[in-house]
């Protein structure tokens, strides 16, 4: 099958790649572009491990075709920390022990970023519904929710 040439930006960097028309964004990110921070738990849009931002919108990279990223801005877990260091969301996940095995963590952090960009002061219910697309089997969610609440407070103070 002939491949398609795609030009996009990943975490601010200009990126070009070739992919087949049916290849998903998560495949290209992980296998072609070596951005393995984005995880794959189901490939059917049910676990959120592959969460990335596409032009600022939260998507499951396993449900997006790689060709759809043409001309777009893709943000992955590798692009959340800044030159100053970890993002407050990352700091709070660490502080609150909001990860056990850590496989869901990249997806949760990217989803939390999308949540807090849109709702800087979410209540618990909003957080739980926003993150309902991200499965975590280890933590029972308690510490994740607390980390997100604390990150929201910290970011609100910084703003």
């Amino acid at each position: 099958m002939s491949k398609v040439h795609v030009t996009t930006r990943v975490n601010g960097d200009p990126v070009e790649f070739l992919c087949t028309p049916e290849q998903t964004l998560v495949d290209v990110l992980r296998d072609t572009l070596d951005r393995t921070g984005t995880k794959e738990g189901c490939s059917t849009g049910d676990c959120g491990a592959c969460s990335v931002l596409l032009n600022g919108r939260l998507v499951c990279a396993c449900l997006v075709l790689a060709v759809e990223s043409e001309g777009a801005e893709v943000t992955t877990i590798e692009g959340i920390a800044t030159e100053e260091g970890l993002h407050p969301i990352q700091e709070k996940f660490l502080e609150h022990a909001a990860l056990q095995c850590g496989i869901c963590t990249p997806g949760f952090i990217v989803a939390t970023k999308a949540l807090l960009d849109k709702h800087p002061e979410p209540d618990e219910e909003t957080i739980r519904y926003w993150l309902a697309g991200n499965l975590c089997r280890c933590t029972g969610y308690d510490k994740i929710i607390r980390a997100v609440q604390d990150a929201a407070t910290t970011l609100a103070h910084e703003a």
Partner: protein
Amino acid sequence: MAEATEFKAIGTRPVRPDGVDKVTGRAQFGADLNLPNMLYGKVLRSPHAHARIRRIDLDAARAMPGVHAVVSGADFPGAQHGEIGGEGGGDVADVAKNVMARDKVLYHGHPLAAVAATSQAIAEAALAAIEVEYEVLTPVLDLEAAMAPDAVLVNENCFTKNLPEPAEKPSNIASVMTLARGNVDEGFELADVIVEGEYRIPMAHQGYIEPHACTATVNESGQATVWTCTQGHFALRTQTANILDMSVADLKFIASEIGGGFGGKTVVYLEPVAVMLSTQARRPVKMVMSREEVFRASGPAAGSCAKIRVGAKKDGTITAATAWLAYEAGAFEGAPMGPGAMCVFAPYDLENFRVEGFDVLVNKPKVAAYRAPGAPQSMHAMESALDDLARELNMDPIDLRLKNAVAEGSQAAYGPKFPAIGFRECLEAAKAHPNYQKPVPEGAGRGVAAGFWFNAGMESSAEVHINEDGTVQIIEGSPDIGGSRASMALMAAETLGVPYEKIRVLVGDTEASGFNNVTGGSRTTFATGMAVIQACEDIIAQCKDRAAKTWGVDADQVEWEDGQAIPAPGVNAELKPLTLAEIMKTAARTGGPILGRAALNARGPGAGFSVNFGDLKVDRETGKVDVLSFTAIQDAGKAIHPAYVEGQMQGGAVQGLGWALNEEYIFDGNGVLENPGFLDYRIPVASDMPMIDTQIIEVPNPSHPFGVRGVGETPIVAPLAVAANAVRDAIGRRVHDLPLSPPNVLAAIEEG
């Protein structure tokens, strides 16, 4: 043992050593390794739950461009019967046949061939080109059918084990066991009240978010390197060596970071296949299961049927109890009947009881361990029966349990006397808990239940190296599945008197670390921790010796305090303490590098008890159950890193609630799993759950220097009955079978 000691490091909540890599996407998990020139391996799986393989034709697949290896059962060495020791072991031939079927396929999804090709698409096309001729057999799909006298046989060579007289004809009952004490008939005669019930729980999956994945590369001299996500790379190496008839010296296993396991990643599925494919292709082969493959063909938890009968006097004293426990093993023997039977009455001091257990073959995937294997199923039944009993007796359910609870010195139902345990402490804490004092919200019901797990010790090794600047490197071999690097570093910090920040922890591969058994059975913090502590004690002894040499005094005139060698009180008071860094500065002159080590089989893992309660609301129109609040109380002995202990309790609670409320393997009449994805096999999501309140009880384990008990398994046990008892309280009727899904609960409401 350290009693009422003031700890400096232990009990604090520092950031875990591997944390930053895990929040930035740097940490490398099972599927994250790509090697140059790598091929993709894929498995051909049986479309039938039970069939004889008449013929497999691999030629067309072999001939396809881009295909570099094709294997089937015939390519694997003739599997010898024999034990693979350790956790996740079992009979070599069984494990081998589960990895790759020989003459029969025994469940839908059972592997029977595999290919390696230059792309996933070519590999899939090659699988489609493999021709197989089957003779389809009737599948055995539930316990009744399997245990019937004239049942179709899953395995014609299976003769029931542990019978008083050797079995004469084959059966689907692989083995039986009984545990008994006293005289149950007499006991039931003394009872004022008797409750009984039959409880069924379907197979459920551990649901780790990371699918099984590995990459194997074998060179021309037969040396293999396998990168894999596992709870135990040493155990997987042993299993692979046995299946492929290789020397363990030719197999190097590297444990990647692991994205959850809960018992399910203690067994090989892909690894021997990847090694075989790579041997044929002479190129690296990567294999990753799809989520569907994980559901269909990894090792779920056993489905079960439990019949319970309990009799008690008016004051709540249990006079007799019986349990009949049958577990679905899947296609090969090895259901957790033993631990299930030993746990069912473990929390209670019983004079008369009888437990019968059955390990039963069915044409479903071979079950694997899932957190406290066997206990959730059997204890759900007992804890439900106790709830019924408390109602009949008009007693508070915690008081009923307190009346019968085991304590130090009680003879456990599984045999020995208990050393120091914290069950009563958990019950009393539950009774006094503010959440228990609160009234039950309108429309909700409250459930209470207890949980138990033995906990494990087993083999661990650790080395401790002191770097030239006095910082510390730990090397051990227990994959870190939930923060164990942090607990190792904390225990080393405490023992050595060195700040946590100066300690690094490596989970070494099979060539870098001494042998460590799997991360499972709640053993890592206890057993590997004990190895780390002993290795640190080894360091201290050597450092004292170096200090003595430096000072020109006898070693017994040196003590160790706060990370430095100091002169023993009263002598040589003029000597200035030597820190680790200072000792290292002169180490070359005093004997060279300093390395401590310990290898052990840890003795005396303290038993873990829990008491959980929760308020659950039932929607009477739809039968949907919502968890309003949940409180988990558990004896951790001593919590090394309390946040990760709480995390185990919270995660286990939610897994248990998921199993109770929603999760089940649904098979059609042909034995095909109908819900092999997270959409239809629905595990709890954030919006399903409330915060999970925790209270850690600390009754120190007398066999551990810091009092540690394992904490990982016990949390999943009690929530099943908590949910069942709360729903009973809410709707006024008992729903015996799990899950308490809307249709099942609604049916009960409508019947009532």
